[in-house]
């Protein structure tokens, strides 16, 4: 039941009784009107009867006067007779008017008839009376004449009595009907009141029941909704609390409002201590390398009004001073109107994955060395073998010239060995800051390590070097990338294959600064479409047991660190239709590629 229905029920409950009571009142008023009419009719009858009475009295006065004159012959006796003559006629006229004004036609007609008869008879008597007056007073006392006058007067009396009788009957009828009307009105009113009362009672009960049922239902619904809301809230809280990542919610002022268990654990702040505190107090973050404080994520979100990732290399310092490398993001919490209501931070401890990544990177370094083992073994063992042979020859040689020649050869072979080992070691030895690196020299160094392999595989290496291609970087890492790329090319090209290495300095362009581009083309089968998207993912290899699947992943990381890039495509170039790996290394190392605060990430 909604509010509108509820109002309708209320209106019905109010309006219906009013209508019913008005109806009863109207009925009562009508009944009272009826009674009043009946009473008026009775009064009219009374008045009429009084008039007739008066008329009778006047006629009796006239007769008495006339009789007195007849008996005495004294004209003074005629005074009442004469005095009554005009009023009698007035009374007749008045009675006629009153009766004629009545509405009941049959009864009116009878009464008018009776009145007319009485008047006619009175006129007859009056005619007789005039005759008496005109006669000689001596002859007045004539019994016959007296008898005649009495008869005529009796007739008048009889008809007037008749009129009185009928009017009396009418009055009785009226009185009875008024009484009946009164009784009926009383009964009807009582009955109507009872019926209306009962009806109203029933109706009100019905309506009230309906309202109360609706109210019950609404209450039940509300309870159910409240329960659902509470369950939902519980569910959300449980979900937030059990999320594997740390979650902190703040208000717009940057005060902590909520922390889940992981967040409490990582920051070292129990929720009850952290509630209402400034976020930066609880969530202390600095840059991993510069140790500078990082911008408060709440300010950053407020500034950008969008989801923001924190800079790489962010370190969280927990309450007890433990440092954790974290990866995180912050997002505005918006209310229904889209207004920012707070900020939610999600972060996770990536120290472990950092260590894993570091382990993978160093294991890849070893793998590169492993891939070079055959070449290196050859490169080192050949001169060592020669030296051993030369020592053997020197032992039994007495000829000075021969000895000198052997020693010179031994020195030559030793130099070669040392060059090899130096190159090999340079794969690992690394300066702390970027240094100028001659890409050509670097390429030649790697080619030297691979020389044996290339010769054995009969691979022809075409060098297209344009000098000077000098960049700033970490030589060992660049060498590692180069070794990887070249070894891949050697393996792809296969026996009797061909490789082209193009190194050239490039001028600054719109989207990149000056630097060097290195391209390595091979005559192999190229990159398959299915392999292409996965090339730079860790543990992806097309070489089965022979590859770690980390080479290109690590190479990509190294190139990014240098601010450069690595890309691989299939060559469409005439004679070399294999893969083409393209490297770009900027000439200016990005002001300490590894120490730069990663603001550009934002």
């Amino acid at each position: 039941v909604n509010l509108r229905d509820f109002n309708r029920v209320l209106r019905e409950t109010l309006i219906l009784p009013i209508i019913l009571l008005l109806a009863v009142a109207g009925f009562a008023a009508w009944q009272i009107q009826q009674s009043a009419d009946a009473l008026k009719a009775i009064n009219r009858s009374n008045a009429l009867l009084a008039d007739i009475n008066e008329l009778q009295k006047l006629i009796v006065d006239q007769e008495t006067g006339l009789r007195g004159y007849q008996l005495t012959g004294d004209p003074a006796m005629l005074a009442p007779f004469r005095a009554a003559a005009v009023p009698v006629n007035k009374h007749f006229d008045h009675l006629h008017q009153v009766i004629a004004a009545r509405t009941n036609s049959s009864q009116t007609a009878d009464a008018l008839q009776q009145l007319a008869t009485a008047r006619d008879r009175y006129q007859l008597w009056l005619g007789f009376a005039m005759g008496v007056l005109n006669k000689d007073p001596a002859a007045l006392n004539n019994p016959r004449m007296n008898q005649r006058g009495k008869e005529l007067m009796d007739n008048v009396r009889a008809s007037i009595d008749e009129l009185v009788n009928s009017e009396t009957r009418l009055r009785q009828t009226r009185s009875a009907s008024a009484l009946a009307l009164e009784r009926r009105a009383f009964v009807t009113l009582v009955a109507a009141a009872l019926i209306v009362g009962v009806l109203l009672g029933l109706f009100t009960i019905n309506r009230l029941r309906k309202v109360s049922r609706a109210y019950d239902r609404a209450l039940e619904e509300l309870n159910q909704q409240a329960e659902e809301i509470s369950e939902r809230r519980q569910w959300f809280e449980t979900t937030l609390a059990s999320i594997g990542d740390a979650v902190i919610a703040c208000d717009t002022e940057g005060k902590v409002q909520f922390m889940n268990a992981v967040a409490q654990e990582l920051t070292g702040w129990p929720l009850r201590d952290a509630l209402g505190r400034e976020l930066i107090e609880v969530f202390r973050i600095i840059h991993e390398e510069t140790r500078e404080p990082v911008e408060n994520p709440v300010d950053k979100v407020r500034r950008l009004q969008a989801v923001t990732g924190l800079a790489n290399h962010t370190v969280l310092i927990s309450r007890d001073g433990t440092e954790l490398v974290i990866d995180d993001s912050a997002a505005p919490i918006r209310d229904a109107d889209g207004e920012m209501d707070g900020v939610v931070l999600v972060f996770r401890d990536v120290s472990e994955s950092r260590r894993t990544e570091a382990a993978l990177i160093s294991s890849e370094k070893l793998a590169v060395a492993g891939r070079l083992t055959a070449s290196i073994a050859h490169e080192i063992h050949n001169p060592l073998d020669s030296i051993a042979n030369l020592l053997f020859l020197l032992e039994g040689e007495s000829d000075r010239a021969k000895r000198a020649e052997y020693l010179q050869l031994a020195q030559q072979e030793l130099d070669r060995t040392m060059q090899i080992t130096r190159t090999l070691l340079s794969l690992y030895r690394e300066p702390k800051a970027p240094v100028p690196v001659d890409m050509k020299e670097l390429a030649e160094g790697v080619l030297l390590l691979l020389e044996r392999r290339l010769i054995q595989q009969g691979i022809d290496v075409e060098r297209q070097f344009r000098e000077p291609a000098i960049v700033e970087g970490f030589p060992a890492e660049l060498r590692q990338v180069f070794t990887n790329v070249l070894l891949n090319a050697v393996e792809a090209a296969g026996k009797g294959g061909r490789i082209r290495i193009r190194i050239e300095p490039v001028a600054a362009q719109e989207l990149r600064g000056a630097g060097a581009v290195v391209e390595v083309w091979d005559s192999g089968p190229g990159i398959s479409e299915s392999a292409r998207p996965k090339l730079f993912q860790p543990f992806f290899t097309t070489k089965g047991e022979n590859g770690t699947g980390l080479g290109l992943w690590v190479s990509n990381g190294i190139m990014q660190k240098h601010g450069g890039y690595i890309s691989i495509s299939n060559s469409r170039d005439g004679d070399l239709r294999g893969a083409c790996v393209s490297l770009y290394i900027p000439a200016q190392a990005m002001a300490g590629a590894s120490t730069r605060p990663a603001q550009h990430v934002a």
Partner: protein
Amino acid sequence: VTASPLILCIDDEALGLKIRKAVLEKEGYRVLTATDGSSGLTLFKDEPVEGVILDYYMPGLDGGQVAVAMRMQRPEVPILLLSAYVNLPAEVVKLVDFTVLKGEGPGELLIKVRRMLSERRRETGNEGFS
């Protein structure tokens, strides 16, 4: 009086080959040298070679392929495979009579060469008596 044994030495490392030849000659062997597989095979065909010292890693034909070709021509000639690499393919190791790692030194090499040639002599000697 028999002439000293003739050994064919094949290695793409010219300097190493030259020194090895000197070592073998000092021990009294006659030595022929070739710096790749195919010229080595030519010498093997043309000369009465009694033993072969063969490098494994070479451009063009590698030691394994050269050894196969030699076995097809004259299987009785013993072959010593010399390599700087430890992981030699098993079928190649089976094919040759001896293997020596570069870096084991001239002593080891000379012992194996001596054994190789003496076995060869004994075998041919037996043949001679029958």
